[in-house]
């Protein structure tokens, strides 16, 4: 296909497509290679970071034998996994068994095509967007593809022909489908405030309010983060793996590089979700206290600066994922389901109504979308958050074992226990 024809096709699909083919083509190739390289390196080093951080939290050193301070550990792990024996269970569905690891990994990676990782560059060859595919429907693309990740896990569990793997796969499908909904719902307020589904526009909107979405939409951030943990199968939602119950769940039968691919997929998902949280709620690549980066393409040093800011935010959330994992214990399965359906989903729905109402009222009052507007939203969210956590903390987020008892039965048991305590005390006297 000739360059001009492909460009013409591109312009039919995307009105904002560049006028010239070659600069766009070369820029895309360079971005592709650079992004993929950085992505894979970060994923590899996140595995090391996980082990290091967990060790530090437990007053240990962590891996420190391969290379200076253990820095080459990911290389050693990769080499080990390549050298290991590939096992194929005799009664597994071979095609799906082979396909599943890739299906777990690819959706996480595809999402990076639309995440803007830096401010657009005003290059000598025209404006170059710092995202691989500057899709106008970026956020919808993200929601659509992030739900594909479950297929790899479900198929891995099913095709292994192993009861633990199947249980892991079942759990993960139930969990991911449940949390998919509250995740999508928690993003609607972001769309309402931004009025746009383009990720770059969401970043710009946060800059124009002078407040990150985490402040103006704090409850939404909480809902999204909890759902993101569930979507990535990380503790406290790692029910699909649950070592103590299911060996390792859906990847019980996998070995060598296929197992490694699941491992990479988990970290790739974490990285993607970290970047999504950073973009949607923490201002993305936006350079704080600076307006020049939001009005159009910027010079190259500023591009690098905005990339560094985005990178730092993403790394922070990677650390946050690890931090949570090594702090909180796993939820029970009924708790997981009740958090998803009875807590997060109703809250998300109510939250959409409240945010929409607030926005309507603010617009009707004729307020401009600037700092005051954001401050009012922040106040509303602060009140909502306080109310939400106060109500939820009354033994309902994580119900104790007696939380499932009939209230009358519970009252009876309590009175019995009180009477018995009384008896023992009086006997002791």
């Amino acid at each position, binding site marked *: 296909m000739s360059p001009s024809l492909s460009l013409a096709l591109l312009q039919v699909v995307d009105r904002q497509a560049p006028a010239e083919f070659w600069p766009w083509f070369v820029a895309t190739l360079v971005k592709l290679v650079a992004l993929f390289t950085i992505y894979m390196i970060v994923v590899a080093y996140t595995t090391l970071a996980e082990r290091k951080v967990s060790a*530090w939290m437990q*007053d240990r*050193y962590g891996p420190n034998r391969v290379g200076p301070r253990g820095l080459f550990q990911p290389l050693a792990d990769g080499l080990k996994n390549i050298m290991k024996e590939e096992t194929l269970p005799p009664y597994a569905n071979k095609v799906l068994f082979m396909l599943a690891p890739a299906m777990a990994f690819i959706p996480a990676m595809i999402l990076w095509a639309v995440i803007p990782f830096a401010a657009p560059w005003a290059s000598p060859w025209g404006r170059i967007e710092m995202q691989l595919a500057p899709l106008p429907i970026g956020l919808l693309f993200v929601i659509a593809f992030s739900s594909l990740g479950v297929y790899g896990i479900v198929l891995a569990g099913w095709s292994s022909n192993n009861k633990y793997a199947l249980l892991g796969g079942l759990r993960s499908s139930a969990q991911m489908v449940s949390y998919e909904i509250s995740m999508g719902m928690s993003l609607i307020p972001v769309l309402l405030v931004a009025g746009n589904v383009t990720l770059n526009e969401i970043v710009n909107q946060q800059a124009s309010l002078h407040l990150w979405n985490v402040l103006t939409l704090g409850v939404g951030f909480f809902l999204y983060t909890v759902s993101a943990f569930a979507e990535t199968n990380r503790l406290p939602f790692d029910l699909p793996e649950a070592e103590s119950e299911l060996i390792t769940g859906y990847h019980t039968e996998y070995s060598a590089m296929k197992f490694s691919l699941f491992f990479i997929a988990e970290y790739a998902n974490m990285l993607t979700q970290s970047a999504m949280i950073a973009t949607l709620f923490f201002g993305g690549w936006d350079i704080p206290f600076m307006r020049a980066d939001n009005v159009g393409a910027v010079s190259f040093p500023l591009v690098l600066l905005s990339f560094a800011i985005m990178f730092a935010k993403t790394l922070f959330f990677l650390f946050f994922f690890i931090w949570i994992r090594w*702090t*909180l214990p796993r939820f029970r399965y009924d708790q997981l389901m009740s958090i998803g359906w009875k807590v997060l989903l109703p809250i998300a729905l109510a939250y959409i109504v409240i945010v929409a109402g607030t926005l309507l009222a603010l617009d009707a009052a004729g307020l401009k979308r600037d700092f005051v507007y954001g401050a009012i939203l922040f106040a509303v969210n602060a009140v909502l958050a306080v109310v939400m956590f106060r109500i939820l903390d*009354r033994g309902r*987020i994580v119900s104790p074992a007696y939380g499932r*008892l009939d209230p009358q039965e519970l009252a009876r*048991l309590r009175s019995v226990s009180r009477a018995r305590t009384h008896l023992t005390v009086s006997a002791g006297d």
Partner: protein
Amino acid sequence: MAIGVKVIERPIAETSYVRAALQGMGRTLKHLFEQKVTTQYPEQKESLSRRWRGTHRMLTTEDGKAKCVACGLCPTICPANCIKLVPGEDERGNRYPLAFEIDEFRCIFCGYCQEVCPEEAIHLGRHYENSEYSREGFVYDLERLTAQTHPVCEMWDPADPKGE
């Protein structure tokens, strides 16, 4: 609910998930920067007790011969039956071991052989890094026992029971 399970009314401060979670996060974050406690084993080693009972060592006289006089007390007292001793006698009537083997796999490291030895010849050693490629490698013969150089175990002294 099982019979006899106590259901106790507890204040919200004890049952709150959010507070407990935040406390836990603080705790792990604090530990992130705390002094690490791991002993970096091959480089650093924990010091052994002076009465540590490890693999054996046979002490020698000045001329390099084993002090053992093949009296036969140690194979007799050995509860694991791991010492094999073949006594010999030279032309002047001095007894010496023709063969002296200790199977360190059978040994339970009770230290009776060292306690019973009248010549203070056989000792347990303060040593624990033993690895071999075969089971046969753990049958230490006289040559190997005399060649060991690690410090020997000190006996328990009734006059100084805590070893101070």
